[in-house]
């Protein structure tokens, strides 16, 4: 029999959850709530006796100091005069983390295993004293604040409808699939047949792939081999497998495409045979061959580079855009927990050391006509909470990140998540980054169970929902389950039990087993052995499900018992689902019946390349011009406006929610300065506590430059990555990069994507920029991913629909070892009287600048990067840091020198006394140019006067100027052009810097 337990804080204690609801209802929706209490609800669908129920109520679920609880409605005891009761619970099949830990704890306390069909479901009940609100408003509180209709359901109960005896009643969101699993044989007689099948089943097969697939299954040799296994027509398992493997997500068809690029102004044409090979693979191979610190790139789940003599680090970056756009919390938590599996599945497995984030959303105060899936404010809240829970509960420091607003992201937001890990260079005398599957090894699936989650990603239709249909396409990451698995796998690795490991991400088993089977080569798996969340899944669903928190491991048969015992110790579910073979075939069965028999090499050969036409029009020809601006008399308000602007103001509220110090590795935090509130140039951690080699990391995203020319956007991003690494003490000769491209669709269609060819040209130019910058600056790409289709079709208030494409975006992530923490440095000046230097030349490059952004201008003169000058600068600065000559290092980027100087003053609580006439600048550069130009290759450095000569001796190959001093006061004083341009104090600047988001917690 089912029971419902309600738990709440004692009425005399304040309820932060209730208060947070009151605040958000007021701030976000203008709804006034006088009082709110939140009850936790556990619904037990178990065979517990009433004594047992009372035991778990008291011993687990009720804290006698703070809580009251009851199996009867608690409302009369916590808020008897409530006006509305809002109940919010998860839909069937959605991962219920609290419910499953409740069950686990109950089994332990009661000393008995819980039966397969026993379950506990968690939900919340909000009691509101809000006499003024209508039912519609109460409904919208649920729909817009408390729940997401994709994963949650709710009930709104007015006080006069309240049933005092039964309260909200009992709702059991159990999945019941009244379905007998089966395998379909799909007779395909023509290309058209297959195309129709593809549409029907959401396979998204590319038209050009269709004849290749048909040819394979029609091949007489293949037919006779299949006949031996009792197979004739392709099965649904096989077609699903092929479509997953051929998807753009898994196969990067766009980047592997052939591009015909044409400059529309000059008519010049150029063919790029394969964008990935030419701009990413070849440069990386060349750079890796010349650098012994590049350990493993271009094939595994993440790249591997050397940290110090005994340890390597592992890095990769991902995006989780589409799911986050629909269900921000679930999408973001699944994203960060998911990317953490990549280092775990790299080589023989890495320990997770740090996470990074990048969020691109529409303006937080957006009030335009078009209605995005979620308002940017709520979207951002959800994303932050998802990364918070995913990162914090994984026990991995969320060490660095960025947030960027642009109205074009209302079509689809971007959620970047990156992961860093470390592993000993050698494990048991073998290189840790090498792995392979061998015939005879067992195929073991570790971690969570498989449900209908994530089948066909987010494209799955939500039609035909019933009360007991799983919310198939939406996933909620479970960091707790994964953390246990992480600890287990590291111990198994160190015991030498793991010859091969990879993660289950996109495509699920079809991808992890499919790819690992290419090494042995061959595998056979019985899909009936895969542990399920609920019965009734078809074999093809088991094969492609993207249910989270799973790894696929090869285990030698003689290690089976040791591996399983260790798995039990860590309370991790591990199951042998098959074995690797050497016959080159992927054989899947469901019980004894063969349902897939495909050559493992089939997917690697014979498929045609995608083709794109790219049409470029240079910026001036597109009508971009440089605005004609005159210098104002003084620039105080411009500086303050910049500090207050959404893309440069404080993001402290986000970083504070992220544990950036767990593992004890923190060296340079996301914030620096006397008030610890000024964003640092890069994060630095000490990933191996016994070593003194740090690891620096930072991400760069310069979307605005792409509005002028994506080539320069990318070169500036890569160069800034190098400077950020150098500024915090990283070795500029050992900088690695990760490219994460997020691009609108480049598939031209005169109706739906009329500027597709231009977007394709932007992509080609971006890749050229990446190639040139990496080669010139010596930065190999350790990892990278692309996510296309950053587009959304939104409806306006008047019912119009409009397609909104996101701006071409690439987040560039840089990493570098810091060889000795004595080199680590921060941006705040340390002593009054120190000399202030600006290194690098300031040019008239305001195009795409933050200053123009304040005026909604784009401009034309985008910063162009001088690679040689930047390299010389970084080399000189690196020597200065090694010799302890630089007392602070500040990277000049968005917002130009003005933003750099302002951050230094706020961080130090010390002033700067500067004369910008002294600057090494382009001739006749205006005051605006001097203060706000975003020329790349510049750094602000302060130096002890006693070290002046020694420091300047290092600057032979660098443009530089001494422009003033650190002052005893706390003001930013800037002279120039014969007058005082800026006169601001630290407190005033901090006020502007915190004005926009300072009130958020």
């Amino acid at each position, binding site marked *: 029999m089912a029971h419902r337990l309600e738990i709440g804080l004692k009425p005399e204690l304040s309820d932060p*959850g209730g*208060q*947070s609801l009151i605040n958000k209802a007021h701030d976000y929706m203008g709804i006034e709530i006088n009082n709110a209490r939140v009850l936790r609800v556990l619904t037990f669908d178990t065979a517990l006796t009433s004594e047992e129920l009372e035991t778990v109520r008291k*011993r*687990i*679920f009720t*804290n*006698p*100091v*703070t809580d009251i609880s009851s199996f009867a409605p608690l409302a009369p005891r916590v808020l008897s005069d409530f006006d509305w009761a809002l109940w919010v619970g998860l839909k069937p099949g959605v991962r219920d*983390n*609290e419910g499953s*830990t*409740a069950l*686990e*704890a109950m089994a*332990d*306390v009661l*000393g008995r295993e819980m039966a397969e069909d026993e379950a506990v479901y968690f939900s919340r009940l909000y009691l509101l004293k809000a006499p003024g609100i209508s039912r519609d408003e109460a409904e919208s509180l649920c729909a817009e604040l408390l729940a997401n209709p994709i994963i949650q359901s709710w009930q709104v109960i007015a006080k006069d409808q309240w049933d005092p005896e039964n309260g909200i009643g009992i709702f059991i969101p159990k999945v019941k699939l009244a379905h007998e699993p089966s395998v379909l044989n799909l007779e395909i007689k023509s290309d058209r047949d297959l195309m129709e099948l593809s549409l029907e089943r959401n396979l998204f097969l590319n038209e050009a792939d269709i004849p290749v697939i048909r040819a394979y299954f029609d091949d007489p040799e293949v037919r006779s081999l299949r006949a031996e296994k009792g197979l004739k027509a392709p099965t649904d398992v096989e077609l699903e497998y092929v479509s997953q493997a051929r998807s753009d997500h898994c196969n990067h068809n766009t980047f592997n495409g052939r591009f015909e690029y044409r400059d529309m102004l000059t008519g010049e044409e150029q063919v790029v045979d394969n964008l990935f090979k030419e701009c990413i693979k070849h440069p990386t191979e060349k750079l890796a061959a010349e650098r012994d610190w590049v350990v493993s790139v271009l094939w595994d789940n993440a790249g591997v580079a050397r940290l110090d003599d005994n340890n390597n680090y592992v890095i990769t970056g991902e995006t989780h855009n589409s799911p986050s756009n629909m269900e921000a919390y679930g999408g973001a938590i699944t994203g960060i927990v998911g990317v953490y599996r990549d280092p775990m599945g790299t080589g023989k497995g890495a320990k997770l050391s740090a996470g990074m984030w990048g969020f691109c959303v529409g303006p937080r105060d957006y009030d335009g006509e078009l209605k995005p899936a979620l308002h940017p404010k709520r979207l951002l809240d959800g994303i932050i909470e998802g990364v*918070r829970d995913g990162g*914090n*509960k*994984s*026990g991995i420091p969320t060490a660095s990140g960025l947030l960027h607003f642009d109205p074009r992201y209302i079509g689809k937001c971007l959620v970047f998540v990156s992961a860093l890990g470390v592993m000993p260079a050698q494990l048991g005398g073998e290189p840790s980054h090498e792995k392979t599957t061998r015939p005879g090894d067992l195929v073991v699936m570790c971690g969570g169970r498989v449900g209908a989650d994530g089948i066909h990603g987010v494209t799955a239709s939500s039609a035909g929902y019933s009360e007991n249909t799983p919310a198939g396409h939406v996933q909620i990451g*479970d*960091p*707790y389950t994964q*953390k*246990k698995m992480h*600890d287990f796998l590291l111990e198994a690795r160190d015991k030498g039990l793991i010859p091969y490991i990879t993660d289950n991400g996109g495509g699920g088993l079809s991808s992890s087993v499919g790819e690992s089977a290419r090494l042995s080569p061959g595998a056979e798996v019985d899909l009936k052995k895969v542990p399920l969340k609920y019965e009734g899944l078809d074999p093809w669903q088991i094969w492609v499900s993207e249910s989270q928190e799973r790894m696929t491991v090869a285990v030698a048969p003689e290690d089976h018992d040791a591996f399983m015992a260790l798995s*039990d*110790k*860590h*309370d991790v579910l591990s199951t042998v689902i098959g074995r690797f073979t050497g016959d080159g075939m992927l054989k899947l069965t469901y019980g004894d019946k063969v349902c897939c028999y495909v050559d493992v090499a089939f997917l690697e050969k014979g498929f045609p390349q995608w083709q794109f036409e790219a049409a470029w029009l240079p910026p001036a020809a597109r009508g971009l011009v440089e605005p004609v601006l005159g210098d104002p008399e003084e620039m105080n308000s411009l500086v303050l406006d910049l500090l207050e602007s959404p893309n440069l103001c404080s993001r402290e509220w986000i970083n*504070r*929610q*992220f*544990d950036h*110090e*767990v*593992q*004890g590795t*923190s*060296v340079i935090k996301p*914030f*620096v300065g*006397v008030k*610890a509130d000024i964003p640092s140039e890069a994060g630095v951690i000490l990933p191996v*506590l016994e070593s*003194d080699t740090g690891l620096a990391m930072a991400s760069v995203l310069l979307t605005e430059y792409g509005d002028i020319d994506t080539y320069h956007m990318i070169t500036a991003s890569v160069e800034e990555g190098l400077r950020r690494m150098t500024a915090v003490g990283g070795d500029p000769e050992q900088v690695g990069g990760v490219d994460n491209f997020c691009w609108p669709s480049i598939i031209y269609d005169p109706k739906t994507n009329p500027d597709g060819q231009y977007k394709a040209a932007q992509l080609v130019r971006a890749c050229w920029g990446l190639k040139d910058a990496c080669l010139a600056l010596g930065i190999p790409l350790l990892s990278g991913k692309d996510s296309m289709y950053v587009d959304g079709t939104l409806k306006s208030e008047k019912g119009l629909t409009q397609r909104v494409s996101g701006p071409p975006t690439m987040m560039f992530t840089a990493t570098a070892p810091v060889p000795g*923490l*004595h080199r*680590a*440095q*921060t941006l705040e000046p*340390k*002593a009054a009287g120190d000399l202030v230097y600006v290194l690098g030349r300031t040019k008239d490059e305001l195009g795409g600048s933050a200053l123009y952004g304040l005026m909604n201008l784009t401009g034309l003169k985008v910063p162009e990067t001088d690679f040689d000058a930047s390299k010389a600068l970084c080399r000189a600065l690196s020597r200065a840091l090694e010799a*302890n000559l630089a007392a602070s290092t500040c990277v000049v980027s968005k917002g130009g020198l003005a933003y750099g100087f302002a951050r230094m003053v706020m961080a130090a609580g010390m002033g700067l006394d500067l004369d910008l006439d002294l600057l090494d600048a382009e001739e006749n550069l205006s005051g605006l140019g001097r203060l706000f130009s975003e020329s790349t290759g510049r750094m602000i450095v302060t130096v*002890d006067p006693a070290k002046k000569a020694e420091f300047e001796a290092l600057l032979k190959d660098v443009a530089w100027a001494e422009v003033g001093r650190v002052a005893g006061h706390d003001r930013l004083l800037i002279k120039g052009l014969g007058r005082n341009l800026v006169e601001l104090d630290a407190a005033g600047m901090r006020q502007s810097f915190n004005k926009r988001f300072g009130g958020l*917690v």
Partner: protein
Amino acid sequence: MTVRALVLAGYGLNCDVETNHALLLAGAEAEVVHVNDLTGYKGHKPVKTLDQYDILAFVGGFSWGDDHGGGVVLAARLANHLGDQVREFVDQGGLAIGICNGFQVLVNLGLLPGLKGQTERSVALIANNCGNFQDRWVEMLAEPKSPCVFTRGLSRFDLPIRHGEGKFVATDETLARLEENGLVALRYGDGRGDRANGEFPQNPNGSKNDIAGICDQTGRIFGLMPHPEGFYRQSQHPLWTRLREEKTRKGEPFDSMAPAAGLKFFQNAVEAVKQEKAK
């Protein structure tokens, strides 16, 4: 002389590695031990017992995901399987430190504050007043009159806090008894050496009486929300680069890896065990 320390791990705990590292630096023979190595699991008997150790460290993290209250499920598990061993360990004068989630565990086990006549839970750590997880550095004031072994010789220093549920609450009566008996070992300071007086963010969670850490009457069982292992070396402090500059300009040496205030907690514990063993 060997001082043996156990650092608890598993089920979502996540500060085991650095806590173990700090204990090793403090001179203990420390090891990370999985909960199930103490309780046994699926056909496997326990391989460790608490009486093999002088110091127990209940570390930070999210045991069981913090679902149903921080430390609640782990405490229930420990009470269920190791209740007798824990009592024995405490009665024999063993030392125990609970940090963050570990503090929540000790409180839920009823070991803290362990006031006379109380066996039930009598204090609690609940959701921060600000309603959210917070990672920030705070000033710590150690109470000189506290019997706490771990905070000996400490007075005013900084530590990081990283939690969503760290608000210390108890009835007025219990609070009064804690204060009378000097069981409040650590409080949040205002940054200038005085008590934070409940002000956010100096008191980051709204704890009553600015309480950051308490001990039992022996001073040997101690729990705190801040993370001493988060400040075991100088270069974990948010302002260490500035301190380095100040020192080197005065001609004084500065070592980024040198011990910091948080390590003192572990050194004190090791020292106390050594002294007793020498007796």
